[in-house]
């Protein structure tokens, strides 16, 4: 059977993928994945972490944005082999109900989401921006947030990023992990 053939190939090369997702290590069944599989699909279809979204498959829309080593990265074009062993953070671990990320709190205050589909990617892109730049101006936001929102929540995202940045700068809230 062709499937067994592929499995044999994988095993011969000794390929097992170790993923570190949201602080947990997953050794992925080599029958479920192979090193070419984009991280997005391992998250969504293997680990059932469906908060990270599929939008375009070509790194154009940003719905699949996650953090790898703290950097925003489009997981739909990132093969598992490239992230093996590196810390990956997804929307599910951006904050918690008890301790939301400052951006999540700002998203509520500014009533940002509409359909909500792009918002995981938007939040992850924004969190990576704030980790590097505590006081982003409009041009910084334009340059960093290249994600697509078809509902057009951009004006509120811009304001929410600025207000979350202000909260983080004031130290009113502990900076979330990242």
């Amino acid at each position, binding site marked *: 059977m062709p499937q067994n053939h592929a499995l044999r190939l994988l095993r011969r090369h000794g390929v097992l993928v170790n993923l570190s997702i949201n602080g947990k290590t997953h050794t992925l069944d080599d029958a479920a994945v192979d090193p070419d599989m984009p991280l997005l699909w391992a998250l969504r279809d293997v680990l059932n*972490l469906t908060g990270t979204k599929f939008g375009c498959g070509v790194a154009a829309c940003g719905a699949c944005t996650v953090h790898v080593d703290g950097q925003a990265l489009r997981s739909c074009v990132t093969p598992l082999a490239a992230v093996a062993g590196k810390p990956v953070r*997804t929307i599910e671990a951006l904050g918690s109900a008890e301790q939301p990320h400052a951006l999540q709190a700002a998203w509520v205050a500014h009533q940002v*989401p509409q359909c909500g589909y792009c918002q995981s990617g938007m939040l992850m892109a924004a969190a990576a921006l704030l980790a590097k730049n505590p006081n982003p101006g409009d041009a910084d936001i334009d340059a960093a947030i290249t994600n697509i929102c*078809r509902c*057009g929540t951009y004006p509120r995202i811009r304001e929410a990023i600025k207000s979350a940045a202000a909260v983080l700068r004031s130290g009113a809230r502990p900076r979330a992990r990242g």
Partner: protein
Amino acid sequence: MKRRTLIVSGLGTAAALVVGWGVLPPRARLGRAETLPGVDGEVGLNGWIKIGADGTVRLAMHRSEMGQGVHTALAMLVAEELDVPLASVRLIPAGPDKLYGNVAMFVAGLPFHPADSEPGAETRLVQGGQWVVAKVARELGINATGGSSSVADAWEVLRLAAATARAQLVGAASLHWKLPAAELRIDAGVISHASGARGHFGEFAKAAAATPPGSVSVKDAKDWTLIGTAAPRTDIAAKIDGSAVFGIDVRRPGMCHAVVRHCPMLGGSPGAVNVDKALQLPGVERVVRLGPVAGSTAALAVVGRSTWHALRGARALQVDWQAPPGGGIDSAAVLQALEDQARAAASAQGGFAFHSRGDMEQVARGAARGIERVYRAPYLAHAALEPINCTAQVSGVGAARRVEVWVPTQVPGSARALAAQVAGVDEGAVTVHVTYLGGGFGRRLDVDVVGQAVRVALETDGRAVQLVWPREEDMTHDFYRPAGAAVLQASLDGHGQPIALAITSAGDAITPRWLERALPAIAGPVDMPDKTVSEGLFDLPYGVPNQRIAHVATHSGVPVGFWRSVGHSHNAFFSESFIDELAVEAQQDPIAFRLGLLRDAPRHAAVLRLAADRSGWGRPVAAGRARGVALHESFGSIVAQVVEVSLVDGRPRVHRVVCAADIGTVVNPGIVAQQMEGAIMFGLGAALFGRIDIVASAVRQSNFTDYPVAKMIDTPRIETHLVASTRPPGGVGEPGTPPIAPALANALFVLTGKRLRELPLVL
């Protein structure tokens, strides 16, 4: 026979044929408690509302949440009348009962001029037409979320359902305590009396179900505590932590994944297929042929262990794609043909006249001069961010066969009917679960993907299968916003004022094509005049005394569908750009010119004045910038927008949009502002970049890389200002889209002196 008489008598005949007059009881849309069976101690009070044992309220949610905030807005209506906090209204799926059909959307589809259908002052013809269509719509019970109609449709129904439930609960408490109902008060779901008697809804629900409500009326507007407030949306928490479940997030035990690959040529089909390479890949299970279903192009589906395995398999298929019979479609040729047809009809008074008044011929002879312009608009894709998808599971055999479908859809009833048809079962054997929609914009009024998913599920041995369209399949196999062309002509008097207006447009009708796909049971053998082709042209508020507004309905063969704001999306560009041209001809300020034509349209004039006032119209604008304005009514709401634009590297950059609107009674001003912003961004992206090109029946654009949409860098500052109103609520999701393209084009004219008459706006 006059045109309108024809339409109404046609509707009447259709109604009689479809349902028979005898089964049209004049009943309220309250529904019966049996429609909502209680579980775990819940008690149903009517077709909309159940009370839980703990006193919480459950609302049967019939409309789809696709970002427009409808789940919040409809729950607000109920919370208001029941005097409970918004958070204590829990939403439960409404199910397929006809009670949950949309009446307002179908009534709004009638091609009546707004001047004849002003609420409370409708002409008898309009009253008759609306009555018939409302009856038919109620009998058909088609549940559709679209046409910006959800709040308008639910406005009386849900408030009355909640007020009736409240009266029953209070009545039950009154009987129990032997205290006058008038002395009881409700606060946060607790009924109490000054004597100290207290009890929550759950304690009286059972008795309430047997208590007649008596005469019920809804709250007076002055007593509202929730309606009219910017209550936070109830769906935000799930949309910021990844927990909201969209269609593509549905997970079922043992499920498999499938990816579709259509014939690249619209209407074509797969000929010889070599599946060997695909099946040799690990994790690829099988390939299923998909015939055309509900308007789709024939395709192949590859089933695999994960979406990625299926994607890889789909890429590995070797297919000899067959072109559609009858020759290829070329969008450039279609657009040229539309222009030619519009020109021919304009010179021969041809096309179907949606509106005519006065005497065009006589006026034209007496006019000082005439002006004629041609405008064009391309096909557009919806490109909702959540790819088209559906999860389906078929279990059991023969009479025991059951179908379960999870789908982000705007039309669950159509999904159910199609699933039943494809699986060969009665509709009663099909359960449809409507998930959150990752954007709809009209695309999810079509259910082609449901037919495909159920077809694949027939082959997966009882396992659930999630069928996903890669972005390229969505971009190349959408139901596109139709291309359109229009000839706009005006006769001017000696002062440059228009005394006659003739608009002749051409383009495909959407509604008849959609009925064939989504509601085949009510699709007619011949196309009725479709209002959506001429909306935004025949229904203008301007007091030009002589008008003829006509449309030539065409059949391009391109699959066309409803795209946020539908006909208004391009017709507003045509009409509001042309009005701006007339202002230039009259050597008047664009707002002053419009106000001169709005003497009999005070609501429109008020909205325009508000936009002018808040935008600083008439005051100097920053160096290098120019302002433009547009005013447009759609879906029962009037919107004016003032745009400030400059050129950055030779391309338009919008800095600010001031949006003024009269949407009738405002249920939630926060959501209204959100929708105006979103509608503006949707229209702005289309105005700047949007075009779908078709060559030899194949769509050239394939992804966001070659079909750009608005992004953060394109985003202006947007301010929304609402006119206070006591009218019933109008639409909110769509009316913000139409004015942005003409407002921008009009601003670009001021800035550059160049009049752009084709979308997208390329300098």
